[in-house]
């Protein structure tokens, strides 16, 4: 797995420069709690052998809004909606209530303090 560091300000620019629909396949987004910060990850794989997995990652603080990459990766809305529900992350123009019912307790996958 190849990891590429980015930040929220450069996220769209970095992923936009990398992602080519005919070459890459968007896998999913993930979030990992690292102390006070959260490491957000965007996974891609190549279509051609040996199909290396590339991970863009950015550290975010609690309450920070993450830009959506829907305009670059059309299917990303599913992964973004999942993170909003399960990790209580704010994502640009993404409402809660896709993976969990709208009246759920936010962020069930967050570690209990």
């Amino acid at each position, binding site marked *: 797995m190849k990891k590429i560091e980015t930040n929220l300000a450069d996220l769209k620019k970095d992923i936009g420069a990398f992602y080519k629909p005919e070459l890459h*396949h968007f896998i*999913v987004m993930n979030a990992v709690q690292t102390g006070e910060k959260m490491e957000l*990850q965007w996974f891609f794989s190549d*279509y051609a052998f040996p199909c290396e997995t590339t991970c863009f990652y950015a550290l975010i603080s609690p309450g920070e809004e993450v830009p959506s990459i829907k305009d670059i990766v*059309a*299917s990303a809305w*599913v992964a973004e909606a999942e993170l909003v*529900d399960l990790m209580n992350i704010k994502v640009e123009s993404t409402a809660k209530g*896709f993976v969990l019912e709208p009246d759920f307790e936010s962020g069930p*996958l967050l570690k209990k303090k």
Partner: protein
Amino acid sequence: MGRQYEIPVGAQHISLLEPLHFKFTTENERIVRTDANVYYVHRGIEQACCSKFKFRQVSFVVGRVCGLCSISHTTAYSQVAEKLLKIEIPKRAKYLRMLVIELDRIHSHLLCLSHVAENSGFEALFMKTMQYREFSMELLEAVCGNRIQYDFSIVGGVARDLKPETGQLILQRLKNFMPQLEELVGIYQHNWTLSLKNKGTGVLTREDAMRLNVVGPFARAAGLAVDVRNETEDLLPWKEVGFEMITDTAGDVHARNMIRLREIGVSIRLIRNIIDGLPESALLTETKAFPDGEATVRLEAPRGELFYYAKGNKTQVLERLKIKAPTFSNVAGMVHAFTGNEYGSAAAIIASYDPCLSCTAR
């Protein structure tokens, strides 16, 4: 513009195997917009795997993510844990994992085909396909001890060996199944009423499959050559046992049926090659290490690419486990491919997606 109607389908609906909700906006019986949500079966499995269970127990937990493709989950998790432990498993264990994955693919594909037939109004074909599927369930029971949720892959290898007589039983039952498979191919390919229902229905183009990152038979039926078995050799030697990718171009329900039927043929060939070339070795690599660092694994489940991410912290309990099921990747394509179709075809289209919500919501 005609009058528009909103039609809810699910969470409980005769055409749905699992709780999934679609809201179709229709105009003159044609679907012009689809909304979906998947929020009925979240079970907190990822959280449980990182808090309640030790990393060696997790393969048994993720085997419960899905009844249909539990071998894919247990194998993908075992592989990602083995990466964190930095161990290589014996070659016989790799072959046995491939054997069960392919047996599982046969029963899963036949289940999907039977439901497409049923949702297309062809009850007799549903019965026939389910009847022919039974042999694969019996073989899985013979190999793994269970018909579903077989805890076959474990961290370091596999839990059971394949007895020579079981190998011979598999070969014999596959031989018996071949004429039945040919009969099914003939019906799904040529039956006139089924063709009327399925040809040109629920079309997803190759460009849309690529743009929406669709995976599995759904993508391959649209001409997108994506199959993890063709893309990775490091964890399971697919090409060594003769893997061959199948694609189509039509991208409709009929093409998805044919892809699955032809893939069953590929699975049979792979199983024969695996049994014929089964290497002699141990079944398990032992280690006392704890998982450390982070790793990812991709594996071709019956519905497409299954993805596991794990992060270890040198303790018995994982820091993070992330599961991405194939249906999760296909949600965007599923929603898109309804547009322009008649509402009456929605049931067959849904079945042809082969959605698995237990995997998706976890």
